[in-house]
C-alpha cells in the first residue's frame, strides 16, 4: 500500500521544541560551557579545562554531601515503601471510606514544598511548636536547630508525611486492578494472608511499585525546598544535601565553574539511575 507522505505534523511539534530548547537544552549547554571556565561576573570568562571536575571529584565537601544524599534517599525509600504498601492494604475497598481515605491521602501532596517546610519548621520548634514542645515535655532533649540527629529525624519525618501518600495512592491503584478471581482461587487453595500478599498482590503491584520507587528516588535525591526552609542545611552541615550544597556553591559563593561541574556530575548520576529503573520497568514489556 502506498501511503502519502505528510510531514505537516512536524509543524505542530515546533512549539514544544522551542519550549524545551529554552527551558532545558540552552541552560544545560550553558552549564556545560560554565563547567570548563572561571568567571567573576560581567560575562568575562577564562578557560580552566577539566580543573573543576578534578576538584569536585576529589572534594571532601562533595563526597560528604553526596553521602548524606544517598543515606537520606535510602532511608526515605526504606520507610516510605513498606509504610505506603501497608496503608494501601489497610484502606477500605468500597463504601464511604474510599473517598475519605483518598482525599486525606492526597492532601499532603497538594501542599507546596516551601509551605510544607515552613509548617514543619513551626511545628517542630522546641519552645512553641506542638511537636517540639510535646517531645521536650515528655522528657526528650529535642532541638532540631542545634542537634544534627534531631534535624535528620525532623527532615525524614517531614518527607514521610509529605510523600508517603504518593506510594499509597499508586499501590492502592495497583491493588484495585487485581481481579477478584485471584483472591477466590487463593481462598480455595487455603492461602494465608501472607501468601496472598507475597504471591498475588506483590507481583501484581510490581509495575506501580517500580514507578513509585523511581518517583520517590528522584524526588528525594533532588530534594531542595523543604530542608532549605526547615533547617537550611544545618545545624552546621548536618542536613546539607546535594542540591542545597550546589546552590550554596553557585549562588552563595558565586563559584559558577565548580558548581556547574558538580551539577553535571549530579545530573549524570540521576540519569544513570533513571536509566537503570527505566530498563528494569521495560524489561518484560517486549518493547522492541
Amino acid at each position, binding site marked *: 500500500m502506498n501511503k502519502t507522505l505528510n510531514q505537516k505534523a512536524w509543524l505542530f511539534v515546533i512549539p514544544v521544541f522551542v519550549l524545551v530548547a529554552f527551558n532545558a537544552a540552552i541552560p544545560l549547554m550553558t552549564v556545560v*560551557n560554565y563547567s570548563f571556565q572561571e568567571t567573576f561576573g560581567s560575562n568575562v570568562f577564562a578557560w580552566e579545562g577539566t580543573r573543576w571536575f578534578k576538584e569536585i571529584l576529589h572534594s571532601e565537601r562533595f563526597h560528604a554531601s553526596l553521602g548524606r544524599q544517598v543515606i537520606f534517599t535510602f532511608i526515605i525509600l526504606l520507610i516510605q515503601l513498606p509504610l505506603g504498601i501497608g496503608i494501601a492494604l489497610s484502606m477500605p475497598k468500597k463504601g464511604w471510606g474510599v473517598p475519605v481515605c483518598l482525599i486525606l491521602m492526597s492532601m499532603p501532596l497538594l501542599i507546596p514544598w516551601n509551605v510544607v517546610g515552613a509548617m514543619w519548621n513551626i511545628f517542630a520548634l522546641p519552645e512553641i511548636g506542638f511537636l517540639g514542645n510535646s517531645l521536650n515535655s515528655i522528657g526528650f532533649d529535642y532541638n532540631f536547630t542545634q542537634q544534627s540527629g534531631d534535624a535528620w529525624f525532623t527532615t525524614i519525618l517531614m518527607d514521610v508525611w509529605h510523600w508517603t501518600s504518593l506510594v499509597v495512592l499508586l499501590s492502592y491503584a495497583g491493588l484495585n486492578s487485581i481481579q477478584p478471581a485471584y483472591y477466590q482461587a487463593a481462598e480455595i487453595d487455603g492461602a494465608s494472608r501472607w501468601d496472598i500478599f507475597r504471591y498475588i498482590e506483590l507481583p501484581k503491584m510490581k509495575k506501580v511499585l517500580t514507578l513509585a520507587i523511581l518517583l520517590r528516588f528522584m524526588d528525594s535525591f533532588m530534594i531542595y525546598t523543604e530542608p532549605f526552609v526547615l533547617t537550611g542545611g544545618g545545624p552546621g552541615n548536618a542536613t546539607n544535601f546535594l542540591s542545597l550544597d550546589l546552590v550554596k556553591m553557585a549562588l552563595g559563593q558565586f563559584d559558577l565553574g565548580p558548581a556547574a561541574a558538580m551539577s553535571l556530575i549530579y545530573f549524570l548520576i540521576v540519569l544513570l539511575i533513571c536509566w537503570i529503573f527505566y530498563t528494569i520497568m521495560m524489561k518484560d514489556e517486549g518493547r522492541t
Partner: protein
Amino acid sequence: MFTKLHAATWGEVGKAKEKGLFDFDLFSWMAWTWQTATFFIFIALCIIVMLIWEKKAPGGSPRKGILGLDTTRGDRLFVSLLGSAFIHLAWLGLVGSLLWIASIICVAYFIVVFKYV
C-alpha cells in the same frame, strides 16, 4: 541606567557599552568556547547520523544483547554516550592527566556497545 553598568571587562565597568552586530546578550551569556561547541556539534552529528541510518535501515534493528536487554540503535547510542561520560569522569578522578587515553577507551567502548549490547 542599568545598561550603563553592564561591562565586558573590568576596565569597562561604568562605561556605556556599544553593541556590535553579533554581540547579542544570549551568546555572551552562554559563554561558548570552541571546545564545548565541538562537543555539542559531535552530539548533533551523532543524532544526524542516527537519522540517516534509520532512513537507510528502518526499524532501529532491535535485538537482545549480551546484557539480556532489548535494545535498539538509539538505546545503544544512549548507553555509549552515558558510559563515555562516566569513563571520562572515572579517568579524571583516578588518573587525572592524559584525558585522551580515556577518549580512546570510549571509542572502543562505543564499538563494543554497538556490536554486542
